[in-house]
């Protein structure tokens, strides 16, 4: 028993969705239904994928725009986050395309921050170097162990030396 009116309504809906398909897939019911079912599944999946694809594109565009100014995308984004700039990748990519001066401002902000960081790193490195050279000098001066793997506590050594000097003075006195 065939309920023709209800079935044609249902089939017409699916036929309409099969427009533009290749060959018999647009005309023939059995192929139409296959194609349309798959198409709807893809549509469901790709509504979620679309968000990812856009973000990918913005990142690629941003990476290109930022590389022109000599910074990498990763550094740019991390410093921007530290500077509490809340612009999202979509807007940043848009700025890179249409507002080169504003984008350049952001790049320079990041560059300033990178320079500050480098200064702090250098200061730390200098401090460490200073301490190491001080330890080396002390080793040479006091003819300490040749075993360089032993860590030397300068303050403890100084205290020991002071104690020795005091004891000698007490004994002498």
């Amino acid at each position: 028993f065939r309920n023709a009116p209800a079935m044609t309504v249902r089939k017409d809906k699916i036929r309409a969705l099969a427009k533009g398909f290749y060959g018999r897939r647009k005309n023939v019911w059995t192929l139409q239904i296959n194609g349309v079912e798959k198409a709807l599944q893809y549509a469901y999946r790709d509504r979620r994928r679309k968000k990812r694809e856009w973000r990918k594109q913005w990142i690629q565009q941003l990476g290109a725009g930022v590389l022109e100014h000599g910074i990498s995308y990763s550094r740019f984004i991390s410093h921007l986050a530290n500077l509490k700039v809340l612009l999202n990748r979509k807007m940043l990519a848009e700025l890179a395309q249409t507002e080169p001066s504003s984008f350049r401002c952001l790049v320079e902000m990041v560059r300033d921050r990178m320079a500050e960081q480098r200064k702090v790193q250098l200061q730390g490195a200098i401090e460490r170097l200073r301490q190491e050279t001080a330890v080396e000098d002390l080793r040479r001066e006091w003819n300490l162990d040749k075993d360089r793997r032993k860590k030397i506590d300068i303050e403890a050594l100084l205290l020991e030396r002071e104690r020795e000097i005091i004891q000698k003075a007490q004994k002498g006195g």
Partner: protein
Amino acid sequence: IFFRVCSLFVMATALLHVEAPAKRMSLACVASGVLAGAAVVMVGLFIKDAAPATQLFAVPTTAAMTRIPMATGMQQRPSVVTYAIPDDAPPVDEAAIAEEAAEAVIEEEEEEERVNPKDLFDGQKTYYPKLADTQADKKLWYAIDATDLRLGRMATEIARILRGSNKPMYHPAMDVGDYVIVYNAEKVTVSGNKRTQKLYRRHTTGRPGSMKVETFDQLQARVPERIVEQAVKGMLPKGILGRQLFRHLKVYKGPEHPHAAQNPIEFKFEGKLAKAAEPVTRGRP
């Protein structure tokens, strides 16, 4: 505050629509110009806990901020954008604006044109490159001297330029790349023992048994352009667009090329790309 801005804008557009048609275009231009100018300032406002807008450093205002020209379609985009204003922004003088609105002559019309919300958000769409942006007159020409450049490292950069990956306007489905001329192709180098060990295979008749194999130096002696071409072709996308991009690569043996009329820009492998130009130290040169 967002609603305040929106309502102001709606009021402004309502005023514009209501006044005489002759005045409409000029006022619209002025309003959009003001908004476009304000957009740059509003970017500064967006930045929280940072230096105030007056401390934005001086940006060099040369004509060409970047080498890459702006897309044609972009200059015609309407600059209708709205941004959220943070709470510590200077207050809007609503009284003065209300006064001006009251003074304006409002003719009663039968129908009020409603502002289509899509117009307000048109500026939020990411730009899609138009056909005009893919035309040859928009493309730059680059010339690369392949003397003592490492084959693969040079080829990746060529592929990037051909594809347009170095442009903020990049789109994977559109041809937004540039032309590349490679000359002195016979002087390209490879590291290690590749010169005598890298094989190039081809099937001449399509039947089994008719495979021809050549080493790198044999092919370089015979058809040196093919080495660079094959290297770049392998790095481009495979498909109609990839084939089209490959046609934008022009490889020549020797220092001469017939594209002087295109004023090619000499592309140097410096800075981050300096590795491509490093001399080969290992292996038989």
